[in-house]
């Protein structure tokens, strides 16, 4: 995996740098460190969500319920904070992660024990979790003035020039890199997607790996729920609508194979940053939001074509080696 992929990741990094340079010629100050830090901060939640999504995709599954999970969890903690301003913030954050993980566990159980295809499970829970957010709130909003200042300010509190939100994203990137490359669970996730049958024969519980991936994805979605609500200082049923597709797109652009088993944390981060740069740049250079969506779509398809071609090339290598074996043996 490293060689081909590393090349793809460097390529993606280069494209992002070229894009930033290009935008800078049209909009002065775009490449200023402050603006770049801003873009990173803007993309932080997407990075966190996409890393959870990536873990799920690695196991040959998909989690379409992340944004709905985010909306429900965000609503739940916002309402708690509004109703009981005395609750410590740390407890609320732990709750957000816990609620998110529980929702992820529901996905995981359905996939693991009932053997329902993940896309069907999470398409269902996507609607259910949104619906739960509506039932919980009765359709009303939680506005900035109802939330406590601590609740709202934590993510923007600057530390060493960067807001805590950015630091949190960096910490989670490091954590996910460690989990996926240094723990048996990470290895099991790659193996479960790379070849589920071989994984079973190697004594890996594929169902359990998928379950854990969904729990992890849910936990990160729950955390994102708090971050989203406090960052935008409002909670309502439809927050982050459609954001699950952004998280999948970040993975695909970052070279995570939808067929499972291939991909890296750094690829996902770059994929998310790529989307973040486009989102921030297009309004600056005066392109309408509708064109933005079309452009994002084109980029996603290009990325898929690119991935498909890279995987095809692998097939040719095998054949060539087979031919080589004939002469070798």
């Amino acid at each position: 995996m490293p060689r081909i992929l590393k090349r793809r990741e460097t390529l993606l990094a280069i494209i992002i740098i070229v894009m930033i340079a290009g935008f800078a010629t049209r909009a002065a100050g775009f490449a200023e460190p402050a603006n770049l830090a801003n873009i990173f901060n803007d993309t932080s939640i997407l990075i966190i969500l996409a890393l959870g999504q990536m873990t799920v995709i690695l196991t040959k599954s998909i989690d379409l319920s992340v944004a709905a999970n985010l909306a429900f969890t965000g609503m739940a903690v916002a309402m708690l904070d509004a109703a009981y301003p005395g609750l410590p913030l740390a407890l609320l954050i732990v709750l957000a992660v816990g609620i998110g993980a529980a929702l992820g566990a529901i996905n995981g159980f359905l996939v693991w024990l009932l053997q329902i295809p993940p896309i069907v499970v999470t398409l269902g829970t996507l609607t259910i979790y949104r619906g739960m957010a509506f039932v919980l709130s009765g359709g009303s909003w939680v506005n900035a003035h109802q939330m406590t200042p601590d609740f709202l300010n934590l993510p923007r509190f600057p530390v060493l020039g960067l807001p805590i939100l950015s630091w949190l994203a960096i910490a989670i990137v490091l954590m996910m890199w460690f989990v996926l490359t240094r723990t048996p669970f990470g290895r099991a996730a790659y193996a479960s997607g790379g070849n589920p049958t071989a994984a079973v024969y190697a004594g890996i519980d594929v169902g359990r790996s998928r379950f854990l991936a969904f729990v992890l994805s849910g936990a990160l979605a729950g955390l994102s729920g708090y971050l989203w609500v406090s960052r935008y200082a409002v909670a309502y049923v439809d927050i982050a609508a459609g954001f699950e597709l952004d998280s999948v797109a970040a993975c695909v652009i970052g070279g995570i194979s939808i067929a499972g088993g291939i991909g890296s944390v750094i690829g996902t981060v770059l994929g998310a940053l790529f989307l973040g740069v486009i989102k921030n740049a297009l309004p600056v250079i005066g392109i309408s939001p509708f064109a933005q969506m079309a452009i994002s779509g084109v980029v996603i398809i290009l990325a898929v074509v690119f991935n498909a071609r890279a995987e095809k090339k692998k097939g040719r290598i095998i054949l060539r080696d087979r031919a080589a074996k004939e002469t070798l043996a």
Partner: protein
Amino acid sequence: MRGISQIFPGVKALDGVSISLYPGKVTALIGENGAGKSTLVKILTGIYRPNEGEILVDGKPTAFAHAQAAIDAGVTAIHQETVLFDELTVAENIFLGHAPRTSWRTIDWKRMNSRSKELLQSLESAIDPTIRLKDLSIAQRHLVAIARALSIEARIVIMDEPTAALSRKEIDDLFRIVEGLKTKGKAILFISHKFDELYEIADNFVVFRDGRAVGHGELKSTPQDEIVRMMVGRDVGNAFPKGAVALGDAVLEVEKYCHRTEFRDISFKLRRGEILGIYGLIGAGRSELCQSLFGITRPLSGRLTLDGREIQVRSPQDAIGAGIVYVPEERGRHGLALPMPIYQNMSLPSLGRTSRKGFLKAANEFALARKYAERLDLRAAALSVPVGTLSGGNQQKVVIGKWLATQPKIIILDEPTKGIDIGSKAAGHGFISELAAEGLSIIMISSELPEIIGMADRVLVMKEGLSAGLFNREELTPETLVRAATGNA
């Protein structure tokens, strides 16, 4: 057809085979697993094109460029598992691809259904042509497949083990239909492993062995023993000698192992340094037995004793922990995660030993991979390249290395040399002997008689999920094994 050869890269599947089919006659095609029967069927139905030789229909040379060309020439095959469409109706299945059309070029449903009904009635069947195929029994599906063959006015009908999934009564019905086809002047090629059936239905026979036609004639006048001899008749000798190993105590004891659907009452003992062969026809339950020993499936009842202590194997983790490993038959498909690097594939079942305090230690994994890569002479640019970039032979080495790295006591090999050319086979056998000499106990599933007779200390023969005998080394002859496996005393 005459002088047909089919060469696959590295393996010659058919070598100058000639067979003749006659109208109104049933010709039995007999041979061991892997003798080239299926390859011949694929050539006759236009799926493969022969590298040499020709197919003559009514004395005229014919080339089947693709499957449709074979159908146009009147050749049709009814496969073991019928290749039909569950969700379509019976009539649609019969006429798929050549449905009657109306003058508007749309499908003439009325005519299609009535024609289907006629065809099925000619087979003495009252199946309603408008019901969906999935609601039919396997025997009824065979009838639909036969009706399809009739609908395209096939003159040559190939039946590839059509009775494998049928009950005795359904077989009788099928045979009546085959008799009917005979009187209609169809030429029938009938592939089966069951001698009693062949003697019931077939007129002529052809025996295949190792991709060659080694005998043919009139079945009725040929005793079964002679056919068995043709099937196996080769100098088995000591082509694959197992080194002399002093057998130790029993390591594994299997008592009355039963599975709900696949096998029943299997018992055997495996001693240290022993190679126990398991022989049987495809579908005899050999792999299923071994998969349940490895914890992929759960047995219904039975006891498993390892080193004198009873153990429970509920999952592959349990089996690996107990020192039992299973090298699957489809090593490419079931053995490796191709996108993952060599060293990660190698260490996958051994992560418990290479990790420290629950975290992976890449250095330990590399050390483990290097050790077995050297031992197996694995050729790769680096241990960090994806396994998918390796050649087939080297991929096999990764699979073997991965299992040896778990330091097993018992290693189960499922068709260890299937699809490997002769030279590599000998090396493979040498290596298996070496492992036995080191005190490993080996269970080897094999369909190749020379291999199993040459290598095994004892052989368990399975037939239709039951044990059909346990033979000691000195009793091993091709005839005894084939007779036990095909169930004719």
